[in-house]
């Protein structure tokens, strides 16, 4: 197959378009649903092309779109239910800011600390290296379901229940980032390292001047993974927070669900759209590190 790919980018494009369309379908469906009125969602059987009805309606009466279609979003953004006291952002805007803060703090913490540790595991020789690394690996293999209660009890002992650090810190020092970056640092050719060593480069210099710049794509990948993961995290913030001012978007969005009524799908989908769009932007910003060919430029510089 790859030899045929060579014959022309047209085939590649065609293949990609077809695949991408199937990948985008649910997102498209989410977007369409988020613009519908509550009664419309189930009004016909789900069709292969779910937007046709909506399009017809918009063409029929363009003003309807601005009234009903944007209703879900304005309803979301106007939502507030926090207690009166306090002066900071409340309601939906607070959920958004909390989510941004959690995601940034966890991502930065993970990338910074685990790149340091990964460098030690990949490039330094010290007694106990293998053993400590296996301890890291081992923690990846235990499901969070059984570590949740011990973690919670630890945080209670520290007096940290319902604090920002309780949400952030346990997600920072996971083995995932360390393991991943170690694997990438391993691919750096030894010759480059030796050359730098001969030039009198210290281990810190090796880390700073060689390992990090040569692993920009890996750092970008870890950042994306960590950011997306912490942006969408639900269970842990739920467990450690007891007031709404600590909620993130995934928690906040469940507040729109009623117990007696069926879920308001359009509103929930509008919420999912609000959740997803920033992630797409982050991804688009991060993915350019996968194309620039940073590696060669950095070494020659």
């Amino acid at each position: 197959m790859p030899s045929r790919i060579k014959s022309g980018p047209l085939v590649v494009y065609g293949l990609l378009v077809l695949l991408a369309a199937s990948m985008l379908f649910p997102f498209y469906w989410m977007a369409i649903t988020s613009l519908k009125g509550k009664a419309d969602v189930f009004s016909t059987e789900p069709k292969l092309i779910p937007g046709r009805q909506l399009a017809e309606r918009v063409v029929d009466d363009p003003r309807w779109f601005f009234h009903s279609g944007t209703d879900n979003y304005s309803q979301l953004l106007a939502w507030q239910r926090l207690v009166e006291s306090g002066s900071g952002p409340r309601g939906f805007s607070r959920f958004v800011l909390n989510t941004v803060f959690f995601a940034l703090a966890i991502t930065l913490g993970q990338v910074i600390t685990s790149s340091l540790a990964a460098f030690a595991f990949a490039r330094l020789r010290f007694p106990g290296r293998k053993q400590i690394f296996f301890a890291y690996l081992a923690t990846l293999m235990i499901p969070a379901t059984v570590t949740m209660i011990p973690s919670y009890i630890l945080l209670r002992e520290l007096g940290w229940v319902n604090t920002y650090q309780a949400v952030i810190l346990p997600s920072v020092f996971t083995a995932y980032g360390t393991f991943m970056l170690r694997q990438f640092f391993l691919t750096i050719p030894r010759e480059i390292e030796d050359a730098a060593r001969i030039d009198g480069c210290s281990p810190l210099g090796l880390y700073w001047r060689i390992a990090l710049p040569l692993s920009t794509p890996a750092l970008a990948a870890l950042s994306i993974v960590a950011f997306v993961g912490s942006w969408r995290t639900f269970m842990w913030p739920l467990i450690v927070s007891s007031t709404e001012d600590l909620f993130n978007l995934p928690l906040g969005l469940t507040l729109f669900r009623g117990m007696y009524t069926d879920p308001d799908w359009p509103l929930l989908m509008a919420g999912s759209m609000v959740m997803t769009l920033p992630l797409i932007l982050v991804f688009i910003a991060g993915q350019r590190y996968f194309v620039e060919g940073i590696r060669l430029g950095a070494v020659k510089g």
Partner: protein
Amino acid sequence: MPLRGKSFFFTAGVLAATLLLGVWLHSTRTLQAPADQRVHLRLAALYTSQAMENYQDLVDDFNRRNPDLLVELQGIPGSYYDKLLVMFAGRTAPDVMWMGKGMAQFASRDAFLDVEDEFRIPPGHYYESVLDCYRFNGRLMGFPLGADFAVIVYNLDLFQQAGLPPPAPDWTLEEFRQAAKRLTVREGGQVRQWGFYGEIDPGVFGAEVLSPDMSEERIDRPEWRSYLDFHLKLIFEDGSMPSRLEIPGAGILTRRQAFYRGQAAMISDGFHFQTMREEISDFRWDIAPVPMGARRACASSTQGFAVSRHTPHPAEAVRLLRYLVAPESQRRMGGVLVPSHRESARQAIEDMPGPPHNRQVILDSMETLNPFPRHPKINELQQALAETTRLVLTRQQSPEAGLRECARQFREILGRTHP
């Protein structure tokens, strides 16, 4: 290397911004410092937009009336019992908490304060069957606000189109089945309108889950067999009920949506008539009792409040509990539950706008609630039973094999002394 410098400053900038954001968010938290002399109580409830407003009103009113107390309402937006479990494990459970289907699982483990002596209950003023759901070894471990149960909700217009009279108050299972058949409309091989979408409670067929002392299973019995056979007939013989069972979490086409759209002429559903009134505008509807079988029974659930056994302020917490479940408070919740207080229930039903018009059904059903036995391993037993029902009603397992297997599992769960 200009790139490294640039990304260094970028990272440092983001780091600084993150720290600033964190400090700002932390400083603008709405936590109330316990600087005053008031006793602080934490009240937890499952967050649902309608109920939360009611609870917040109640809490505000309580705080006004009790200047020595400060109650904080904590709305938990999901995975309610998971969160409660973790809090109990850490002994940080809220002082008072809302309870729904998890009551038996928690209360049978001594999670709650015994409040039997805190309530003077005049005989006949409360629905005993509802109070019993909160009694363990004869002691009240909390107090029920009220109950919710499944009745038959039907589309009157579709009944008339099919030339059927509205269901009689004493209709039998066979009459129900015939009605469902007549109400089913096919179009080109596909069903356009289902006669029924839902479930008839096993109790109607005389089925019981456990023996009265809860030591033995009662699963592999003809009553359970006739319960399964009846539903299998509706689904596969008459074709009057869809085979797709609702699955916890999300449904493809939930019963209610099928009903709203006129795709199901009858459904079994609970006390959410408020929502139905809002959703249904283009046809007439009403409610009917669950058809009569070996006995009368309807699936039910209760909601109420309980006090944590680990609360540092038991007296104050009990005061809050008494207020939260008082008849006046129950009447406020009348829109979503039938109060456990008889007089409040009567009044709430009377004040309710129609439809449904056949309100006697609601009060009658309160006398025939059929809750699941309050065994400490209730979740395990329910899971085993639900699994069997799901497999048999999708014909992945025969009723005999399913019940035999389920009974075996029940014996295993009941017999296991090592938890």
